[in-house]
């Protein structure tokens, strides 16, 4: 997510490249190491589900609100899921208020894609009356602090918020009116999606880039994985990948996703 206005100088880029040649990065990590991940769920009482995710200095908060709505015509027995988000100046001075920028649209659409295509939420379980009433899940993602790799942080936050979501039990009376009860149940999860972002910097590939590394980087690829499948991918940035490079990245990311999944799993007690 290269933002105009905050520029990494050529000297800095060269320094980063020199470090990479020695197998090191600015914060001392290895090329494919992730920063420590902290996940807190249930941080917002009023929301049905919420999570705060820290990936190094990057912070993202996500919340879930539920309401009862109509299903889509082509999926009458499935709940609807709407993922949105904003990039506000809270996270970085490069972000502006006002209508959503292409960057924020891309970020939320990519996050939406990994959540939706991984089918991690059992949407059929959230159907109330087939063809008429289903739960509508509003998932909103707000980055608070931007130190690189918002794509992965947002994906983790989105999933964590969903995993902590409590769905109110409901009662349908004879008139067909729906009444929410005080009790609630957890949302049913089928998969744990993991997003792996790789940046190309010169001839080097680094995962979980920091802000500086992103700014100095040439091209980005974010890949979403479930246990056995690739469910989403998005290339970004002004550079390009060689075809063989991409193949290697897909393979190594697939392996890496398994490690990350176990980290997320243990953090969420799943």
């Amino acid at each position, binding site marked *: 997510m290269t933002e105009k206005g905050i520029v990494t100088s050529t000297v800095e880029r060269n320094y980063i490249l020199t470090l990479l040649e020695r197998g090191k990065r600015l914060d001392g990590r290895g090329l494919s190491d992730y920063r420590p991940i902290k996940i807190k769920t249930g941080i917002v009482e009023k929301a049905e589900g919420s999570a705060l995710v820290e990936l190094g200095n990057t912070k993202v908060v996500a919340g879930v609100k539920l309401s009862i709505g109509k299903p889509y015509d082509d999926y009458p027995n499935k709940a609807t899921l709407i993922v949105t988000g904003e990039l506000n100046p809270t996270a970085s001075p490069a972000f502006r208020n006002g209508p959503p920028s292409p960057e924020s*649209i891309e970020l939320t659409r990519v996050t939406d894609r990994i959540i939706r295509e991984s089918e991690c939420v059992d949407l059929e379980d959230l159907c109330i009356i087939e063809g008429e009433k289903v739960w509508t899940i509003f998932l909103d993602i707000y980055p608070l602090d931007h130190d690189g790799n918002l794509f992965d942080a947002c994906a983790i936050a989105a999933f964590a918020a969903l995993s902590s979501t409590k769905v109110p039990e409901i009662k349908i009376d004879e008139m067909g009116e729906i009444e929410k009860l005080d009790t609630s149940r957890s949302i049913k999860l089928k998969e744990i999606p993991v997003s792996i972002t790789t940046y190309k910097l010169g001839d080097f590939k680094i995962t979980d880039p920091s802000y500086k590394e992103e700014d100095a980087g040439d091209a980005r690829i974010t890949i979403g994985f479930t246990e056995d*499948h690739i469910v989403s991918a998005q290339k970004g940035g002004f550079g390009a990948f060689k075809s063989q490079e991409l*193949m290697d990245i897909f*393979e190594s990311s697939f392996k890496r996703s398994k490690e990350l999944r176990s980290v997320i799993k243990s953090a969420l007690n799943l």
Partner: protein
Amino acid sequence: MNELERLDGRSANELRNLQIEVGVLHRADGSARVILGKNEVIAAVNGPRELHPKHMALSQKAIVQVTYKMLPFSVEYRKHPIPSRREKEISKVLSEAFESIILTKLFPRSTIDIQVQMIQSDGGSRTAAAIATSAALADAGIPMRGLIGGIASGLYQDHCVLDLSGIEDNEGTGDCPILYSPALDEVSLLQLDGKFTLDQFKTCFNMSIDAIKKIDEVQRAALVKKYDVIRQSILGEEPLEEDDEKAALLTVNQDVTDADVESPTQSEEPEQSSEDMTETDVTVEESQIDEVKEETVDIPKETTPVEEASTDSSSESQASEDTVVKGETSINKESLIAETLDKISKDESPKPSFDEKYNEIDEALKEANDLVTKINKHTTEPEETADKTQSSEEEDRDQFDESSVKSVTELLYEKRKNEQVKDKEKPKSGFFSSKMQELLQNNKLSTGDLNIDVTKEESTKEDEKKREVERDLEYMEYEE
């Protein structure tokens, strides 16, 4: 696993009908129209030009702004004209993809704007948009490191299939559009959604790359074709000139088509796709291929049509052809053509530089002028050609040396002027100007390539008519 049955009967790695046409818009700096199955997209390039608002300008390089837009009537339900989030995302990723290939540092503080409009959309629209954008950028003369082609592949009925149609995309379980530059081996965009295993992804990826290599050839052919049309329009009024030009160009096209049709398909894909690709290529270059065929047929029987044409003097003219020094001029001409051909066919860049183009046209014009004058002199009274003098040739050469200094436009202007004069003089001399007849009477000419060119003249006229009909047909199809 079940047998794959695609709705339109295609095989797994078969493309839909692909047509590319460049220079379709009059006002834009560059433009292209792409038809991919039911997709129809028009791309218009404007720029490099001043950027507003100015705070967006970069002091080091130009910015590239692709605006992908689906017209409200392009899909089943009316699409609201306000840009959707999907359109904005596609615009962003396309901008980035093309920024990776355009030499933006040549135009600091400016913008290159590309408007891509989906006239009709039916699956794989962003890749069709990218094909159009790439061709339009080349058409606009924007310096690029290479061309970008794109195609989507995905999962349909648990099979990896290429180029999903709209319905297949909806029913399928995975979609993966890829933009790729064969010349650079660079993937400038990859998006994916669905459920792919790693192996399925690899299959789809490789299938797309192979297809894009073919698309690239179609793109190049479309760009070459534009210049073919320009050449014809420049040289069109003088069929003989055009003919020489065309002979040169057609052989180039033949090379291209050969490469298109035969080498990649036969070697790589055994069955279906080869058929398919041949078809697509044929649709793109049908007219050219026809021309090529006729040309190759005509050239060997140089003399025969002349016999028919000039029945009176056939024996004499043939005799003269045998006796008269045919060598120098024809060899020169052939070698010249061969040289230019070599230049063109060796040139792998999608768009030869301006200078080269003009030089080629200049040379061809000179040659053609030479021939025209000679032939005009001869066809009237070929009997007299038997005894000719060297001096006239020298005179001719002098004339051409002079003209070689002049620019193409000047030459054109002169040519038109000459023709007007010729037209005026027609009633007097029947067919040729009095000046020519004077020259002829002085016996200052060599037969040279006379016979060849007369036959060619006839075939070109036929070609011209055919081409016109074809163009009309194409246009009608487009209108429909």
